[in-house]
């Protein structure tokens, strides 16, 4: 099956019902995208497909054939992604960091669609779990990026 990830074409051999997460992590060896629950609960596995955020642990491979997938590995190739990362550093967001690939992807996808998200927009989009409780820092970083007063 043909995939496009981070602007590169890939030919993968996994079956069509394999979750995209495991194709990315195991077959392609890109481990920035994380496994947390496998059940669309946590968001650690978030990637962008055609600019939309998806939870790759429940996304079958055949549903993304010939679509454009972006993982955290390419986040800094994206102008908005770079800004998000800079805000994450400025606000010192990550603690253990395990959820943060997904958080950065979610913030990037939000800001790509809506460069001035309101507090409600942010709350609706930034729903990934963080066991370390970095939620306030995440919110501050996204508000900062949206030009809102923090």
């Amino acid at each position, binding site marked *: 099956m043909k995939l496009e990830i981070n602007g590169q074409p890939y030919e993968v051999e*996994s*079956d069509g019902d*394999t*979750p995209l997460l*495991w194709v990315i*992590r*195991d*077959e392609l*060896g890109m*481990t*920035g*995208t*994380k*496994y*947390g*629950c*496998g*059940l669309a*609960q*946590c968001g*650690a596995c978030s990637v962008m497909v055609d600019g939309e955020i998806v939870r790759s642990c429940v996304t079958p491979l055949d549903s993304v054939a010939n679509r454009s997938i972006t*993982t*955290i*590995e390419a*986040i*800094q190739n994206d102008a908005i992604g770079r800004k998000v*990362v800079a805000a*994450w*550093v400025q606000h*010192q*967001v*990550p*603690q*253990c*960091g*395990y*959820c*943060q*690939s997904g958080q*950065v992807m979610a913030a990037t996808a939000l800001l790509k669609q809506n460069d001035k998200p309101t507090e409600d927009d942010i*709350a609706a989009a*930034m*729903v*990934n*779990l*963080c*066991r*370390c*409780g*970095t*939620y*306030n*820092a*995440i*919110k501050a970083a996204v508000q900062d990026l949206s030009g809102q007063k923090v």
Partner: protein
Amino acid sequence: MNDIIRDLQVDNLQVDKDLPTGAPVNLSRRGLLVGSMGAAAGALVLGFGLPVRGARAQDAAKAVAPGTRVPAFLEIRPDNTARFLSPFVEGGQGVFTAMVQIVGEELDMDPKSFIVENAPTGSDYLVVFGKMRITGGSMSVRTSYDTMRKLGASARAMLLEAAATRLGVAADKLATEPGYVVHAASGQRIAYGDLAGDAMSLPVPAADSVTLRDPKQFRWIGKPVERLDVLDKSIGKAVYAIDLKVDGMLHAAVQHAPRLGMSVGAVRNEASVRAMKGVISVHHLPGAVAVVSERWWHAKRAVEALQVDWAEAGAKPVMDGIRVMPANFSTADFAERLANEPGDGKDAEKEGDAAAAFASAKTVVTATYHSQYLHHAQLEPPSTIARFNADGTLDVWMPNQAPEQFQADIAKRTGLDASKVNVHSPMLGGFFGRHFLYQAANPYPQAIQLAKETGRPVKVIWTREEEFLRDPMRPMAAVRFKGGLDANGMPVALEAISICEGPTEGIAGHNKDKLDETAVEGLTGKSYAIPNRRIAQIYVENPTMLAYWRSVGNSMNDFLYESFLDELADKGGKDPYELRMQLLKDNPRLSTLLKTVGEMSGGWKRGPFTAEDGTRRARGIAMASPFGSHTAAIAEVSIKAGEVVVHDVWEAIDPGSIVNPAIIEAQINSASALGVSQVLIEEAVYKNGMPVARNYDLYPILPPSRMPRVHARIIESGEKMGGIGEPGLPAVPPAVANAVSTLTGERVRRMPLSQYTFNS
């Protein structure tokens, strides 16, 4: 917790029994470690001690007395960067950054110019009380602070010495600035990286001959230095155990017996599962089946397809050190049993004469409070890679908070000498107490067995479901409280009998002649001037496996105590904040803390009151003194659609003195999140011997929508340095519960609050 952990674990460690207390040695002179650290040629490799392996075989070497010499390694590279091997593992608490703030301060090198890695196993790194190495108990910085300062100072002295020789001037004519030795008279400046080669051949100065920096001149200690790992963690570059890969590695997934203690009976469809795509082999393990494959997804799918007839536990345990889960175990029944367990318990703390005081008290209040089982629910599921090497050694990569403890256990299991077992400790995707050695709770025995049976390196990853099935839990307790009030409504006597099993006795075994402090901490150690007190424990063995959970006994006991204290205040007609003030009036440190948190919240107001948005709200107060630090928290709540909303948490912490205020603030946020999560929604429920929840769908953890604003303030009283990672948690659940009790008029006596129905 500290002493108990020490007692518990020292036995398991490879502590050299015959450690001389010789002078520090310069390792690089003998060429040790350079190779193993991959140090650049000419780098200064300073170690106050030797690696555990081979140390005693080296004729010139004097072995290390843990805790008497600096158990860490520093490498200064030609490009003027430094590499530091940390005895403590990074799991989000910021310890890598804190370590190089301390070392860098004395070395005179900017923390930014360091990279930090976790140190390998070895007696050098047993820096906690000079005896052990764990990352836990909020002990890392406070137990190694002096040691790390001396390490940095010694390295600086050696660089000065090397520069003195090169420039032909006396060392005392030289000074340093970050990363450089400077000779003011001639204006010369030499980079540390240039001097490392020379400095390497010098003896390490005696630890007591180095001068430490005057704390008034600290540039990095005490400052909000940025964390070193933040960028990597924001771009997916941080590497956790689950991300690691070694050449030739196979993947494995497991299916555990539904109840611990059961073993594999018949596997009904093994042949057809073997024929599934990608399956290399099917294995029967103690209490589990495994499938090995080139791809983890294939292994997982196949192992879940296995139809196993699990055999009930027989007389011989399927694994050492486990508890057999009864088929009829239910947490609801067990909570009932705890509450009704007869007896008065064993004294944990006794002051005055509680019995007499109750007899003469104006009012006696009794109530039973409950805490619940909890999961760690760290976001990174457990995994382990095991690889047997041609030279007879075994490498194991696994998330862990205590490498030497696992090394010893693996040596015992495999029959290998500990020196042949290399335990690698990658970055942790959260830990909260999860990654200590708990029997049957970690995948490494499975990975080792599978590597042996397949002849290839194997990585085992547990699914979230298998993790929640084997995650050892924070204990549950029922506490019978009794309080006596005098005619003025002041508490004159307090008794708390906790019916529970402490985590330490749960892990290491119950000793009927000893008391497990971790069972009662937070009921004990309170500073309120209640003249007659009795705190006691009735031990009831749990059928479940127990564990440490962030802030250990305090995680539940401060909820139990501080909520009952509010109940006493109510009965005595006192405001709970004012009552605490009065009970602490002779304790300036805690009075200050209480005053501070009151001020932070804009002045204590209990409510109920109507907020600007029209919601009815109330505030609760609570205090805690865990892990050598002291905290006070105020929470503001409302009820929305029957659910508790926590709007704000104000928390003041006095850890004595500090290393990084930004990290502390982050930890207060993090601990508040876990505290709010615990009190609002978390509970691990068992029915029919099995956990009801196997994933986050049925075991919810705090989502962003329920996170309160957190306002933290640090008070540096100058007292002995306390912990940071855990102390922020214990005061939060009771502050929330007390606020809810005030708002609803209904006394909350058990967590989580999600089991109550509140009227909006």
